[in-house]
């Protein structure tokens, strides 16, 4: 296998460059075709590169010292940790390329699909390079190129005010993150090490603890703003929905994961772990992120924004695992740490699968109905059966329902926390117990959220003419969706090899043990501490068997065709969509339960026929709006403070030339006094 990986690398690059070259194609159709082929080819090459690295352990190293010599040149080194994320990127790139090939057609004539093709290619390639970057400058450069290309994709529909402001939020937050990252890397290098990761890794040990803590917190903030850690996530629910759906899939399923990658790279690999409170901080971030994400997803009526919030939730779950890993590692429980990290990474992989499928199907719904407002959807299961099927499967996976893949990783997370609770002193055990509670509540709320998402938008009677005349999406999009959705059961079936690979990658990290044999035991998944065992395959088999038996049983004793009869509604004749439960209504009970958090501003407008009597009601409109706590608590005060400072500087530029000369005199006098001080 040796020597193959550079070839694969260049194949990947070539593929994505081909995708980007859609910019130059004479016709829009060719643009789409090259875009699709390039993305698929690049993805395939990238996937095989990642697998080669993961299985043979052979790591790719490339360097271009000539490029930007001033900054130490560019250096690439793909190790197993990076390969996991490269695999995620590439695995998602293939179906997304397939899907986008048809989906982007809907933009032709309105917005430049060539520009879109260029940026999709650049986005894929820069993400792939981030996983292989081996020096601070290379990392930051690819990181920013990734941000920039995705920014242009977010603003694809650039005539809509909404997407402009979304893009602005995205740009601002991602740049704030970049500044934190720059500071972190500079501090890492403040020992005099040059920018290469190897040197930083070596130098990190000698840094004073204060600096190490600062680096970790900066990295957490910087990568958190990309991963969508609450409260740095504000851009995410704005930007992901604004982008074209296949790009939303890329951003939500893949890009945010690179935040996790960065955190692991810096916190675990370069810094080599830290004191227990690092893990504690991450766990708390994770819990807050997961709960905030799912709670806002639950009450969201915009389908794509709901999915974006649920991405935040899942990042929270991943962080719970990562934090537990840091914690156990610092407590000298390497086995448990491995378990936690593995659970986190597995969940990252799984989330890529089902969130990608969800966004693709949401894209098909948007494509079919032209609306993302769930209160205007419905009845798609009969009109767009494939889309609905994909949606259902991925919704079940993300709701962690057995026997699909989401369940497996959440189960592992539970096990990781359990082992932590079992083997650490009361204070930490208490924290972990809260973590378990958060995990469980998140799971339950996620189930409710996706019952709503699927039930309201795909089932029952269409709530609008658009939904009434919805159609199934073209073949290519269907293929992409189905491939993406197929990952969910496949990942469940092949959990054990995947997990073994992940743990093999983790074994490269200093301080974590090599692969615990327990994970290899056939079809059943044993936690390394022998506390628990679970076999997704067996559950799948037993469930299937039972269903078949029950079905046959019913066929035998009650095999009569069903009669069609109107839905019962207290005797009223004929049923209209207006009588259905809406998305807002579905979430109402939980909205009330958590009203302290939501602070909903609801108003009900009642139009009466005759002013003198309030009983002849003609119309009734209920409108509710949330005022998210992070806006209230953090962003509004921050913006206000900057505005105040700005107002002060405006007063400085008063327009009076006398004042201006006065400033000069003042500067002169002050400096003279300073000089006398010397």
């Amino acid at each position: 296998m040796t020597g193959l990986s550079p070839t694969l690398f260049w194949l990947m690059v070539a593929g994505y460059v081909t995708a980007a070259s859609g910019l130059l194609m004479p016709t829009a159709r060719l643009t789409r075709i090259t875009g699709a082929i390039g993305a698929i080819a690049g993805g395939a090459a990238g996937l095989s590169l990642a697998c080669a690295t993961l299985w043979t352990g052979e790591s790719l190293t490339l360097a271009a010292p000539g490029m930007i010599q001033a900054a130490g040149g560019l250096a690439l080194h793909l190790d197993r940790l990076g390969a996991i994320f490269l695999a995620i990127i590439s695995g998602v790139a293939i179906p997304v390329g397939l899907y986008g090939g048809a989906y982007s057609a809907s933009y032709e004539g309105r917005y430049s699909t060539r520009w879109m093709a260029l940026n999709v290619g650049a986005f894929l390639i820069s993400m792939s390079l981030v996983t292989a970057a081996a020096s601070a400058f290379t990392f930051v450069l690819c990181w920013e190129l990734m941000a920039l290309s995705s920014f242009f994709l977010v603003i694809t529909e650039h005539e809509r005010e909404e997407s402009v402001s979304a893009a602005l939020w995205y740009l601002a937050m991602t740049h704030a993150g970049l500044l934190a990252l720059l500071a972190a890397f500079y501090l890492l290098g403040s020992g005099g090490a040059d920018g290469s990761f190897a040197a930083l890794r070596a130098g990190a040990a000698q840094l004073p603890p204060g600096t190490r803590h600062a680096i970790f917190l900066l990295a957490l903030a910087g990568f958190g703003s990309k991963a969508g850690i609450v409260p740095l996530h504000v851009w995410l629910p704005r930007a992901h929905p604004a982008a074209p759906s296949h790009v939303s899939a890329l951003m939500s399923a893949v890009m945010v994961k690179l935040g996790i990658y960065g955190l692991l790279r810096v916190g675990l690999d370069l810094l080599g772990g830290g004191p227990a409170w690092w893990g504690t901080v991450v766990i708390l971030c994770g819990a807050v992120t997961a709960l905030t994400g799912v709670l806002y997803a639950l009450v969201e009526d915009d389908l794509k924004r709901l999915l974006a919030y649920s991405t935040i939730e899942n990042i929270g779950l991943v962080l719970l695992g990562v934090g537990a890993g840091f914690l156990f590692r610092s407590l000298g429980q390497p086995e448990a740490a491995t378990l936690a990290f593995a659970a986190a990474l597995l969940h990252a992989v799984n989330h890529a699968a089902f969130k990608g499928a969800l966004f693709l199907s949401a894209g098909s719904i948007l494509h079919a109905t032209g609306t993302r407002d769930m209160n205007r959807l419905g009845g798609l299961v009969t009109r767009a059966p494939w889309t609905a099927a994909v949606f259902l499967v991925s919704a079940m996976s993300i709701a962690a329902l057995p026997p699909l893949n989401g369940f497996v990783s959440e189960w592992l997370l539970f096990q990781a926390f359990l082992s932590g609770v079992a083997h650490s002193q009361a204070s930490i055990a208490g924290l972990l117990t809260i973590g378990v509670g958060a995990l469980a509540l998140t799971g339950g709320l996620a189930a409710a959220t996706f019952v709503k998402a699927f039930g309201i938008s795909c089932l029952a009677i269409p709530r609008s003419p658009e939904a009434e005349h919805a159609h199934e999406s073209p073949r290519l999009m269907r293929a992409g969706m189905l491939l993406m959705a197929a990952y969910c059961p496949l990942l469940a079936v092949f959990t054990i090899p995947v997990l073994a690979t992940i743990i093999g990658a983790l074994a490269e990290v200093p301080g974590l043990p090599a692969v615990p044999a327990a994970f290899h035991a056939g079809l059943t998944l044993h936690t390394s501490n022998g506390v628990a065992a679970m076999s997704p395959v067996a559950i799948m088999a037993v469930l299937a068997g039972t269903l078949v038996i029950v079905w046959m049983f019913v066929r035998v004793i009650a095999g009569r065709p069903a009669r069609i009869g109107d839905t019962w509604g207290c005797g009223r004749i004929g049923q209209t969509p207006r009588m259905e439960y809406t998305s807002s209504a579905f979430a109402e009970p939980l909205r009330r339960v958590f009203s302290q958090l939501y602070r909903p501003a609801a108003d009900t407008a009642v139009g009466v026929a005759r002013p003198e009597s309030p009983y002849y009601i003609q119309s009734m409109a209920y409108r509710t709006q949330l005022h998210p706590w992070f806006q209230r608590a953090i962003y509004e005060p921050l913006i206000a403070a900057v505005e105040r400072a700005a107002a002060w500087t405006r007063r400085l530029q008063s327009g009076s030339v006398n004042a201006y000369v006065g400033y000069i005199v003042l500067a002169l006098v002050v400096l003279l006094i300073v000089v006398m001080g010397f």
Partner: protein
Amino acid sequence: MDVTGIVCEAAQAVLGLALAPGVVGLIRRVKARLQNRRGAPVWQPYAELRKLFGKDMVVSPNASWVFRAAPFVVFGSTLVVYLLVPAFITPLPLNAAADLFALVYLLLLGTFALALGGLDPGSAFGGMGSSREMTIAALSEPAIALAMLSLALGAGSTNLGEIAARTIANPLAALSAGHVFAFAALFIVMLAETGRLPVDNPATHLELTMIHEAMTLEYSGPCLALIEWASWLKLTVFFTLAANLFLPWGLATSLTPAGLAIAAVTTVAKLGVLAVAVAVIETRIAKLRLFRVPELLAVSFVLGLLAVTSSFSVR
């Protein structure tokens, strides 16, 4: 798993399905008596099932295949759950394949499917029922998780068979604080999950207070039979869990005729006791308003938390 294992599981499935209606019948009977009614005989539910399977099914024109598939999923998942529970013998072969957490999520699978089934016909009641059902399910998750966690901590394993075995091994564990708290927490959750008073009133058909009934409003014939049966089985599952995880005595640890006989008797007895207890409770207390339910679940969450923390102090 070998042939005997399959036989055991199959036998347990059959027994569970056979017992479940009886349990509900007993509860209804006792309630009726406590309310000074004569009430229906204990085997009334069996008759209901027979009747429903005999009728043919009416399906709303709005409903899709999801509506038809849901009852099978509900029934199937509940049955699989029952296959995990040490009802008569322990350990069961399936215990190696799915543990406490898997059990919780399998139950959630049923709830999920039923909620979708409720939404599909597009009736307001279905939507209302699904919404409320999911609300309660979501809010009860943490309590269940913590209760399970404390059980697992006590037994050092999340394997149901293991837990039961450990408690058999050292009976004192049954009296430990964690054990008791966890039992209380699980009991409250059980009331919520199986739609009993004070959370939901299985007997009501007053639309605005219905939860479970509202979801199943559109179902009829065999599908309704499956759903009803599944919900009874779910109740039995929780009873069995409560009985055999906390007081596992009598469970057969080996396949001896005597042991099996004892197991059967004790299990049925425990179910009876719990049924009576539930009946008593349901006659004593009134139904809570929907928005008081979270408070009840919060109580059970705290109980679960106490259960877990008390296991720290043991260390």
